[in-house]
């Protein structure tokens, strides 16, 4: 009889709550909140409380499989791994290393992602490594890198408690980041003014001090509008602008045309509200700015992010306690996957692959020559696969067949690949198309670290054994590395991987398992004796001076038309998570939100004669799905919302793969659609 409570990190959103997995004789029985955890304070959301349920689900993949015609047949690990290595070597031989791409994973640990990119760069010899950050915060990385020199939360989650003003935009925080949301609620109780800018009336907006509801795709307009008000009303933090930033004049010039009246026409936000919001934000002593997909997932996402950066710098709301710009990362380790170099243009720690010095450092460390040319982004890779330029893909724990835009296009692309290997915990829609499927261990079955959204390294600890023959992805990566004949994969534990990572990654320089086992340490942590960093850009910005970026409003790639009169926007709901592979196997979560639905405004519904709960067909230029209508007042007229979790009515069949030119993030948040009774 053994009962254990294993402290580990939640596998869902990027908040990085710690909790205990309760294990009775090897059986996961429940999740117990960790009351002393600095981030969660012993509170969890419904997903956290159910994070143990899918782990020991009967559907888990238990052994490797190799495709034989239509079927996936059980195989030994050696057969499967040899098959992968063989296929990839042949394709590399024939078409060169850049005909192969590896998808790292925001659900895997830092150590694993470090190995994935090492595998791509040092073994296969391509920078074609990317992951789903491309679909969520790529524009944050590019945008904030440009403005500040670093693309992460400038503050920590606990700091929300003490803000006087929290401007939340494009984030349904109470549903998508419930425990960060709870921090905002604490702040509100303490008297903080919460301003929400969102096309949807979210649970947070309903308790906010100010709610600005803009038309989707008009973000730069309201941001510049606020900037103009701040400048015109002399609310600029002159001191900060003078000493800490550059190119303010350009900005002034850029926002000249954004008078509140005009902004009202573009965005639909009443000018009084816009002015009030600008004043409240600018005058606050400690103002936190928080945003998520609603900002990033646009064909001009990078510009919108730069706009928010402008807002923070003009008012000097950055680089202090409870004061800064905070992109809320949506997956347990999406921050870490970026930190660990799961990006086509960056080595671990955001070091550019096209930087000679950096590359030489890595070549020395890894003892191989490395490609200088930045690789393909996930979204570009799909296009290249469609055109046949990309031949093979190895995907670790991602489900592109649900998560990526314009699924029909994705399916076509994936099917065109000569070879596809997928490592995952369930037979996902993507794995079903693979030539080789590898059974992976999930978070509860391995050690490692996640970097949560506030840059803290969170320990993931093994609670139970993986089912059947399933292996941790870091083990799989090592096995592959070895089979390719590389010497750089002789790791016997994640701790060793972290140790190597630290040597080549300055921001992780002082990280070690000994150190983070009992302490919350946030990067940058350059040296062994360094305590980690809570607030970024305190004295100076990572890039030196903060750089104002003059950005202009541009209409979304796809605008409404006669035929497609609605703006379709997509997102999450509280109970499901991403492609549902985990949540939809958790009865309590599935019961709360069992089926796909489209939120449509009461007025629109009445006009179309659609009753609450009736089935409707929603279609775009790319496809059509039928699902239940949820008639509500919580969404503006002319806009419809569909959560993207549901395979049976995948919102991404409709979404537009129009890409932001700089970050290549697709425009999930805006496309033209039509709604009709099914």
């Amino acid at each position, binding site marked *: 009889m053994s009962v254990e409570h294993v402290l580990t990190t939640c596998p869902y959103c990027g908040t990085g709550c710690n909790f205990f997995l309760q294990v009775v004789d090897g059986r996961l*029985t429940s999740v117990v909140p960790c009351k002393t955890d600095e981030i969660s304070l012993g509170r969890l959301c419904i997903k956290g409380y159910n994070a143990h349920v899918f782990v020991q689900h009967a559907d888990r993949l238990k052994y490797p499989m190799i495709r034989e015609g239509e079927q996936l047949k059980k195989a030994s690990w050696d057969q499967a791994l040899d098959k992968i290595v063989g296929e990839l070597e042949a394709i590399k031989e024939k078409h060169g290393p850049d005909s192969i791409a590896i998808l790292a994973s925001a659900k895997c640990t830092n150590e694993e992602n470090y190995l994935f990119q090492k595998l791509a760069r040092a073994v296969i010899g391509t920078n074609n490594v990317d992951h789903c950050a491309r679909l969520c915060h790529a524009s944050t990385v590019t945008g904030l890198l440009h403005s500040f020199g670093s693309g992460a939360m400038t503050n920590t989650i606990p700091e929300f408690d003490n803000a006087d003003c929290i401007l939340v935009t494009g984030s349904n925080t109470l549903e998508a980041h419930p425990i960060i949301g709870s921090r905002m609620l604490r702040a509100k109780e303490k008297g903080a003014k919460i301003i929400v800018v969102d096309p949807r009336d979210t649970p947070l907006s309903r308790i906010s001090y100010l709610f600005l509801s803009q038309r989707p795709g008009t973000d730069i307009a309201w941001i510049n509008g606020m900037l103009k008000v701040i400048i015109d009303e002399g609310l600029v933090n002159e001191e900060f602008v003078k000493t800490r930033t550059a190119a303010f004049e350009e900005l002034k010039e850029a926002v000249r045309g954004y008078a509140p009246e005009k902004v009202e026409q573009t965005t639909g936000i009443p000018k009084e509200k816009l002015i009030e919001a600008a004043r409240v934000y600018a005058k606050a002593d400690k103002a936190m700015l928080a945003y998520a997909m609603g900002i990033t997932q646009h064909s001009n996402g990078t510009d919108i992010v730069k706009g928010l950066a402008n807002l923070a710098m003009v008012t000097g709301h950055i680089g202090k306690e409870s004061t800064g710009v905070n992109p809320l990362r949506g997956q347990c380790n999406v921050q870490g996957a970026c930190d660990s170099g799961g990006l086509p243009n960056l080595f671990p720690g955001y070091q550019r692959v096209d930087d000679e010095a950096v590359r030489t450092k890595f070549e020395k460390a890894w003892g191989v020559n490395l490609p200088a040319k930045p690789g393909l982004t996930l979204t570009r890779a799909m296009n290249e696969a469609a055109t046949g330029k990309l031949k093979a893909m190895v995907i670790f724990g991602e489900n592109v067949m649900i998560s990526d835009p314009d699924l029909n296009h994705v399916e076509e692309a994936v099917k065109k690949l000569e070879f596809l290997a997928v490592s995952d915990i369930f037979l996902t829609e993507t794995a079903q198309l693979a030539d080789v499927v590898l059974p992976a261990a999930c978070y509860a079955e391995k050690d490692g670290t996640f970097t949560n959204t506030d840059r803290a390294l969170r320990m993931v600890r093994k609670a139970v054994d993986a089912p059947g023959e399933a292996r941790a992805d870091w083990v799989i990566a090592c096995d592959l590395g070895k089979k390719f004949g590389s010497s750089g994969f002789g790791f016997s534990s994640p701790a060793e991987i972290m140790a190597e990572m630290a040597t080549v990654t300055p921001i992780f320089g002082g990280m070690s398992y000994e150190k983070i086992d009992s302490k919350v340490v946030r990067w940058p942590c350059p040296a062994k004796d360094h305590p980690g960093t809570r607030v970024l850009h305190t004295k100076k910005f990572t890039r030196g001076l903060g750089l104002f970026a003059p950005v202009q409003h541009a209409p979304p790639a796809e605008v409404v038309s006669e035929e497609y009169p609605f703006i379709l926007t997509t997102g999450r709901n*509280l109970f499901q998570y991403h492609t549902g592979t985990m949540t939809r196997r958790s009865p309590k979560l599935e019961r709360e939100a069992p089926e796909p639905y489209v939120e449509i405004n009461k007025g629109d519904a009445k006009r179309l004669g659609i009753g609450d709960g009736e089935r409707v067909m929603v279609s775009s230029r790319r496809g059509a799905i039928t699902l239940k209508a949820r008639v509500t007042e919580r969404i503006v007229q002319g806009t419809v919302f569909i959560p993207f979790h549901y395979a049976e009515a995948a919102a991404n069949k409709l979404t537009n793969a129009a890409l932001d030119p700089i970050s290549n993030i697709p425009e999930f948040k805006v496309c033209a659609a039509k709604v009709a009774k099914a």
Partner: protein
Amino acid sequence: MVNDLGKKLARLAFEERGADFLLVMREEHGNVAPAMVSKGEDVGVVRLEVPYQLVTILENIYPWISKGKIAVITRRCDEKALAELAKRKYVDDKRIIKIGLACTEEQIERCRCEDPVPSHVDVGEPHAGVKGDELSARLAKMSQKDRLAFWVDQYKKCNKCFGCTLTCPVCFCDDDCVLEERTFVAEPSIPPGLSFHMVRSYHMIDKCIECGECERACPAEIPLLTMRKLLAKDMKEVFKFAPGDEKTVSPLNTTLEGELMEDECNER
């Protein structure tokens, strides 16, 4: 390494009272964790100031512990919780060894606890309870309208984590809670609206032992304990009943015979 408190508890549980298991809180990875140990040397550095709801944890694991006696750190409220569980045969009283913990003044303050001293104190200094709850007093002064406004504002923050039910020691249907269904809670998403909270209030009215775990677990920091206390008071007034005694039966399921209300009900 085992600290002195750990040694003391181990002696109490294993040597003096013949327990096979001990359920405590101890330091792990710089945090405080609930732990179930079966040997004195495994007890570790025990820390009792963090209010983990051990009875809930016990309730979760109990079905898998087919035999042996389990010693558990019990505050006064935990005693009552165990009584409510034993009453419903969820645990066998004879298999539970209670190690009485007297709560600290801070803790009593935080729980606005009126009855903080366990029947037998093994650890901690007994302190008197506090009378009343500041918020209850404030609510009592409010107009009906303001009271409703207050609770609606509070409940608007609810995002349905079910922490209040999952961490509650006397909330025993959490495998399949009716609040997860649409039968009585109409709202498809969050916040779940008033019926969610009123139904739970009603379900708790003859069970709640005021440990305050729901309030501590609530990410929205809704003053759930205050609502429980208000209704506990009402329950006492109407039926002279308070949960926490293994011998009493909830008045909700019994007849009127020989009860205060009988006459009043006879002719209305």
